[in-house]
Each structure stands twice: as structure tokens, then as C-alpha cells.
């Protein structure tokens, strides 16, 4: 088995769940989700709609997809088939059903709710003011499924209850999304450097799905601030194939952002 970094592993496994035909936003400052999306696009997504630098594009014929530092870098617009004005984009939530996206959090709770607003019970005197929900709450409501993602896995991030909900996951558990008539399908998986988690269908509580190579179940439990559902049998996350690593390293991440 080839050597690979945790970030490379995550990019490969996150990409595997994305089928052809999806709408896939490609951001700039989350290199792992960016690589995951592009992996799926190049390996099996010729009909994916790639949202890149305010264009809708298709990149399957592009030999090397070098990263851009900023989401507004218009050099990435060279592949655009159409422009995507931001305000126009909110006129079509029907189309967004078929998009996916990855949302992080300064807190993520056991029901998959994400908080990007801030830390502290008194909103008027936050201990830490976060970046805000930006577009994540809207995507969480309208996409047929979406993914949680965190580059760190600690009890400070994975908390029993978030201080503020900016992207609604399963809310307070079964029935919340139905009660609020939120049409989207909710969070499917949560990816971290330690593991992959899903949600127990009945309780909607976060559940360990697989541990990443070299990580024990106990380590995951210790790093999680809420009571994680742990099945009797937890498999290991499948490692990247040689083929995946080749695509990743030659075409998606030629400058080695995920290797550092």
C-alpha cells in the first residue's frame, strides 16, 4: 500500500461518495473538500456541474487543476460555460436540491447541527465571534444530502449541543426537519482526520461508521465531546487506491497541498 497523508485519505474517501450528475461547488480555502469534489469529477463525474469562480464549468479535460488561493480568482473563470451572478443563484433553489456541499463548524453537535456564528451563551458578548453561517444554512436546507467536515476532531468542536445553529442538521433529533418543513435530505456523513461518522436512522444521533487507518475506536470516543453511537463492529476506512492517489497527485493536487 502506498504512503498517503490523512488529508489525501480524506479527499479520496470524501470523493467516493459523489456520483455523476451532481452540482459540486469548488471553493478555494478548504483544500480537502476541493480535492474530493475534483476527484469525483475526474474519475466518474463527466456530467457534474462544477461551480468555480462564479462560473458553471466542466473540468474533465483540464490536465492539471492547480489551486487558487481566493474564491474570486477570475483566472479560474477560463473554463466557464456560463456566469453565475450571486443574487441570480438564489432564484433557483430547485436546482440546488441536486448540489452537494461540505460544511464545517466551530462547533458540531451530536445531531449534526453546525455552528459558525460564535462561542458563548450571551450573543451580545460572544467569547469568540466566528465567520458566520454565510451560505451553509441555506445549502443544508435545500440539498438532497450534504456532508459535515472538520479538519480537527476534538471535544471542543464535537459538543453535545451547539451554542448557535447556523446550518440545521437533524435539529433536536427525529422530526425537527419535518416540523419546520425543511425539504432537503439532511447531513449524510461527517468526515474528520480520525474517522467517518453517519447518523443512526432512528435517533439521528451521530454514529461511528469507520475509523481511519491507524486510529482506534477509543481515540475517536475520547476526542468526541458527546456520546458517540459506536456499533459492535467498526471497520477501517478503506485506504486510497494507487489509481486514486495517481489522479489526486498528478491532476488535482499537483502542488502537494494535501501532502504537507
Amino acid at each position: 500500500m502506498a504512503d498517503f497523508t490523512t488529508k489525501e485519505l480524506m479527499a479520496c474517501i470524501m470523493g467516493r461518495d459523489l456520483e455523476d450528475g451532481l452540482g459540486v461547488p469548488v471553493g478555494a480555502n478548504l483544500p480537502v473538500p476541493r480535492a474530493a469534489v475534483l476527484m469525483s469529477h475526474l474519475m466518474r463525474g463527466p456530467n457534474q456541474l462544477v461551480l468555480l469562480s462564479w462560473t458553471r464549468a466542466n473540468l474533465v479535460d483540464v490536465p492539471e487543476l492547480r489551486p487558487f488561493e481566493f474564491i474570486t480568482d477570475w483566472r479560474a473563470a477560463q473554463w466557464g460555460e456560463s456566469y453565475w451572478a450571486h443574487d441570480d443563484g438564489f432564484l433557483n433553489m430547485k436546482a440546488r436540491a441536486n448540489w452537494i456541499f461540505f460544511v464545517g463548524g466551530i462547533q458540531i453537535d451530536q445531531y449534526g447541527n453546525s455552528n459558525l456564528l460564535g462561542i458563548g451563551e450571551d450573543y451580545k458578548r460572544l467569547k469568540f465571534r466566528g465567520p458566520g453561517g454565510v451560505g451553509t444554512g441555506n445549502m443544508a436546507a435545500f440539498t438532497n444530502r450534504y456532508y459535515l467536515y472538520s479538519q480537527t476532531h476534538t471535544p471542543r468542536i464535537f459538543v453535545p449541543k451547539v451554542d448557535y445553529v447556523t446550518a440545521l442538521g437533524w435539529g433536536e433529533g427525529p422530526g425537527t426537519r419535518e416540523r419546520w418543513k425543511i425539504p432537503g435530505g439532511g447531513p449524510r456523513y461527517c468526515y474528520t482526520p480520525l474517522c467517518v461518522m453517519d447518523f443512526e436512522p432512528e435517533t439521528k444521533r451521530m454514529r461511528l461508521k469507520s475509523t481511519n487507518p491507524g486510529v482506534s475506536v477509543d481515540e475517536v470516543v475520547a476526542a468526541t465531546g458527546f456520546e458517540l453511537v459506536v456499533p459492535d463492529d467498526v471497520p477501517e476506512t478503506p485506504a486510497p487506491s494507487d489509481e486514486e492517489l495517481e489522479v489526486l497527485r498528478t491532476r488535482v493536487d499537483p502542488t502537494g497541498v494535501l501532502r504537507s
Partner: protein
Amino acid sequence: MSTVTSSDRTVVVTDEPSALAGLQDGMTVAIGGFANSGHPMSLVREVIRRRPKDLTIVGAATSGLEVDMLIAAGCVKKVISPYVGGETIVGIGPAFRRCVENGEIDVWEIDEAMYYCALNAAAQRLPFLPWRALVGTSFPEVNPDLVLFDDPVAGEPLLAVPAVSPDIALLHAGAADPYGNIQHVGSGFGDRAIARASDHVIVSVEKVISNEELRRAPEKTSIPLVDAVVRAPFGAHPFSSVGWYLEDVPLLKEYVAAAEVWRAHDDRSAVDAFLDTYIHQPEDHMDYLQRIGARRIFGLNEF
């Protein structure tokens, strides 16, 4: 290395019968264009050929005689549009006028602004959108689906316009690439709003162009990645196609004269003959153009 290329992309170019294979009785079908321009007539003729029943037609904000023809052909139960007519050719579509006056079809009465509220609400997955104008008019009286309510922020009276979500949209444009990126010439009227609101979008185009050519002017792409593209040169005939050709006014007048006999004298013979000659008899769009004749067709882009 197992990767894909653009040769693996799905080409969505098809013909009228395949594009419309999913049409069923009772569906809500939207038709783009405006007044005497830009209606996807090769698709509308195919709809009529399939003899569906009880369609709800979402016409353009100013529908032309294409909606009137669908009514005359017996396909329509309900019309959602602020206007059905032909401007100076005929102020009000004869079949539309007849069937409304006789109570044979329903009209969901709205104005232009409410028309876009209804489509945008569907596109935004909202049950309704509010509008301020038209409060105080007769619209809520003649369309009980419009709800007068006090807004939850300022307590002002507004109309709630329910979402209208077409099953299928039929549009016409200048060009498309093989993957369904559409480029209108000019404004595209309200075609974008119709596309955004609809579950399935079929667009006939004057010309299919390569993806490379399309990407030279991405700012011209008006609708991205529709479900089906139908190559139909002169596909808006007898209407105009922006940037391509003008209206065939004599043919539109021929239709109006035939439909007017039905309206005024309850005699369908003329309008049935029209539908038979220009819609049911032609095998396909090329046969239609052949019957119209090259001299007449190509005369429409001499101006």
C-alpha cells in the same frame, strides 16, 4: 488511469417526439417566448400531435397564438397567463376568448408581476411570494387563489401569490451546445424565469454549436444545462426568432381567420382544417418546413 473526458459527457440533443415522450394528460406545461416571438413551435406542434387532454398551460407573460392553437386543438383545461393574443393581428386569441366566455376553460387570472411571483416562488421552493401592487384591484376577486394578507413585518396589505411549478417547460432560443447550455439572442424575455421554475426543461434552438464555441462568450449563456435540446431551424415559425427571422404574418392571419369562425359561428371546420394541414399532416419539423416552402421560409430573414 481511470478518468473521464468530455467525450463521456451526455449529449442531450434529441428530436421532438423523444423530448416529449413523457408528456401526460393533466400536466402543467410552460411555453416561453413573448407575444409574436420566440415560441418553440416545433415542440408545440408535437404536443398537439400527441393529443393530450386537460393540460394546464403556463403561457409567457404575454402569450401568443401558440396558446390559442393548443386551446383550439382541445388540449387545454386551464391557462395561467396575463394575456393570450396576437397584438395587431388579433387583440385577443379567438379560441381563448371563445372558451373563456363559454366557461370551457379556466383562467388563473394574474398580471405580469404576479406571473413572475408565481414562477419565482416555485423556483425558490416557497409556497408563495408577496406583491404589493394589485391590492385594491379585482384580481383577488376573480382569482380566489390570491390571498390578501397583512405582512408580518409592517402589517401592510399584500397579495400572496401561490407558487406555480410547471412539470415541463418548452422554450426556443438561438443556440445551444450539445450538453444543454442555452444562448438566447437578446433578452430572452421571461424564458429564464420559466426555466428556473420548471422540473424539466426542453429547448428548441436554431443551431447547435460546439461547447468550445459556446465558451467563447459564457456571458451569453442564458440557461445552463437544460434536460433536452431539440435542433429546430426556423423552429419558432410562424413567429419570429430574435436575431434570426421575422414573423410569418399571413400564416398567423390564416389561423386567426379560421379560429374566428369557430368563435363567432361555433363552426370548427376551418380551424380543424388549419390544425390538420399545418400540424397533424406534417410528419416532423422538416416536413413542416418543406410544406411551408423554401421561398416563404427564407423570405422571412430578408429585411
